[in-house]
């Protein structure tokens, strides 16, 4: 078992899948000569050459759509968006083409493609470069969406995404690329559609995905110091969503706090909160709490940008509310 960064785990997955299957190629801005804007593709150009590691012009709509066409004609593209912020320029290609070709053609076509890159708030990047678009992708039937929170999951889920015959969106994060974690040396896959119980507990369930899973784990530590046992569920896959694992946990703890770093309206967190409410209403001992990003564009100022995001303190307060513990919610 090696300790590895999230970035290197993704790199290892890409490398292994490119070696395994000639049809797999990587395309995007700066993926080749520059070794990746965030160094996820480091060394791949040298190893696989420019045919399979393709630097593009700054042309998200063009190269994303090109990826869709290449997938229709038998290849397995991995499209890197330098960040999900720029993916909006390609939104039409993902929503109207990648996700719908199979259905519109009556099942004749499939689009085995991966769209990946960093998503969510970063640091000091201001409004246009620091935001989560998880809900944009999760909203769309015909897409699969994964959001790994650890290096091992990043590795195993990216491999599964590349082998999947559907379009899969992978949500990474700038600030996670340098995170370290244990990744087994043996090759393995993480199935798409299965949540992870990141920490077992019995008093309440903290539910999140991607970067804020770490916040949930830190909050669980703090709660443990006060004798409260929090379970942490890492959704990992947003579509399909593992409702069974989610519901089983809340049925055990009777209390839930959902954490999502996106804006609150029409968000992943809002949907998850609704699902808990409808599936677990009879066992809930408190209304589901939702800790989201603030409903504002991200400011540049560091104090303000931190205030705009979920924090351990915000999670502890929400936990206090579902536990009816004023000492936590005021503390």
């Amino acid at each position, binding site marked *: 078992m090696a300790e590895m960064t999230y970035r290197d785990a993704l790199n290892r997955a890409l490398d292994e899948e490119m070696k395994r299957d000639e049809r797999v190629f990587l395309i995007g801005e700066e993926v080749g000569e520059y070794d990746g804007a965030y160094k996820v593709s480091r060394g791949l150009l040298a190893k696989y050459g420019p045919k399979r590691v393709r630097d593009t012009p700054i042309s998200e709509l063009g*190269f994303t*759509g090109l990826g*869709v066409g290449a997938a229709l004609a038998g290849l397995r593209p991995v499209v890197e968006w330098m960040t999900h912020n720029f993916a909006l320029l390609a939104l039409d290609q993902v929503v109207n*083409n990648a996700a719908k070709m199979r259905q519109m*053609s009556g099942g004749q076509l499939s689009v085995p493609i991966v769209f990946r890159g960093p998503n969510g708030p970063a640091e000091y990047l201001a409004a246009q470069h620091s935001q989560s678009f998880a809900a944009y992708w999760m909203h769309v039937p015909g897409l699969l969406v994964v959001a790994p929170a650890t290096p091992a999951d990043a590795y195993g889920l990216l491999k599964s995404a590349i082998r999947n015959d559907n379009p899969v969106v992978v949500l990474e994060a700038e600030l996670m690329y340098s995170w370290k974690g244990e990744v087994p040396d043996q090759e393995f896959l993480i199935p798409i559609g299965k949540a992870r119980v990141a920490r077992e507990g019995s008093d309440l369930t903290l539910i999140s995905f991607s970067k804020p899973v770490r916040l949930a784990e830190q909050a669980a530590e703090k709660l443990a110091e006060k004798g409260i046992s929090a379970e942490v569920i890492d959704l990992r896959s947003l579509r399909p969503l593992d409702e069974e694992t989610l519901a089983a946990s809340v049925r055990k703890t009777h209390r839930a706090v959902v954490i999502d770093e996106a804006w609150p309206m029409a968000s992943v967190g809002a949907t998850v909160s609704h699902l808990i409410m409808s599936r677990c209403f009879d066992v809930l001992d408190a209304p589901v709490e939702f800790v989201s990003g603030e409903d504002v564009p991200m400011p540049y100022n560091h104090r303000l940008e931190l205030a705009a995001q979920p924090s351990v303190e915000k999670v502890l307060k929400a936990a206090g509310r579902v536990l009816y513990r004023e000492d936590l919610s005021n503390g």
Partner: protein
Amino acid sequence: MKSEVIAYPKDELLSMLRTMQRIRMFEEKAGMMYGQRKIGGFCHLYTGQEAVAAGAISVLDLTKDYVLTAYRDHGHAIACGMDPKKAMAELFGKVTGCSRGKGGSMHFFDASRHFLGGNGIVGAQIPVATGVAFAQQYQGSDGVTLCFFGDGAFHQGALHESFNLARIWNLPIVYIVENNQWGMGTSWKKVSAVHDFSRTAEAYGMAGYACEGMDVLEVRRIVDMAVAEARKGNPSLIEARTYRYKGHSMSDPQKYRTREEIDAYRARDAIALFRAFLEKEGILDESAWRQIEEDTAREMDEAVRFAEESPEPALLELYADIIV
């Protein structure tokens, strides 16, 4: 029409004429069925433009070549060899349709004939077609992709991004803008900075050709040349100047153009022109033409009957074919 281009075998010439007539008859039937409310939603007829799809697609080998187009797609599907029964059943929303009743008029697909739609967002099929050509190059096939779109798509960013990608990577693709002169109700001249689309190719280092789209032999000749170049890694743009006789879709009152304009184009109808040419060259006679008319009329009657008699999709089909 110039007789020096008659380098094509007689059966190929007759086959092009037949394809044009089949498209015309299919569209006329579709218009009638729409009037009878057998077909709903948007239905964009190809009448008037038949020479473009019939001439261009006749060049291809669809075991290795691909075709993509926009939502005015019935003609291209038929030119690729789609059975009109499946096409009409699709318009009727039946499970026997080419897309099992899920796509309708704008989303015809026939994967076995390399016809990849039938795409509804203006210009959005252009990057996709470019990707198909990318795959052909990657796989080392010598196939090419024909990418059709209308004048309305010409100013979409998707087009310009694609032209650039095709040239920097030398992709085997031919872009064909079917300039039917009206983007819905907007004159192409009103919204185009340069009134010669073929010149745009120059900005991307590609060859650009202007072509009389009502002349099937000229379409064929130019596409032949462009396809041969594309197989060598030289993408190009062809502007086929054509005209649609019907409205943008079935619901278009056409207040933006005059009866005289339509009549002027009908006077040089692509099918009538080609037919007269073949008769003059002694390739077609009156009885042979009558036979084509009868065959196509019967074929389209059968297509309507097939569509009428076909079953609706079962309700559970709603959830089918979304995820593999």
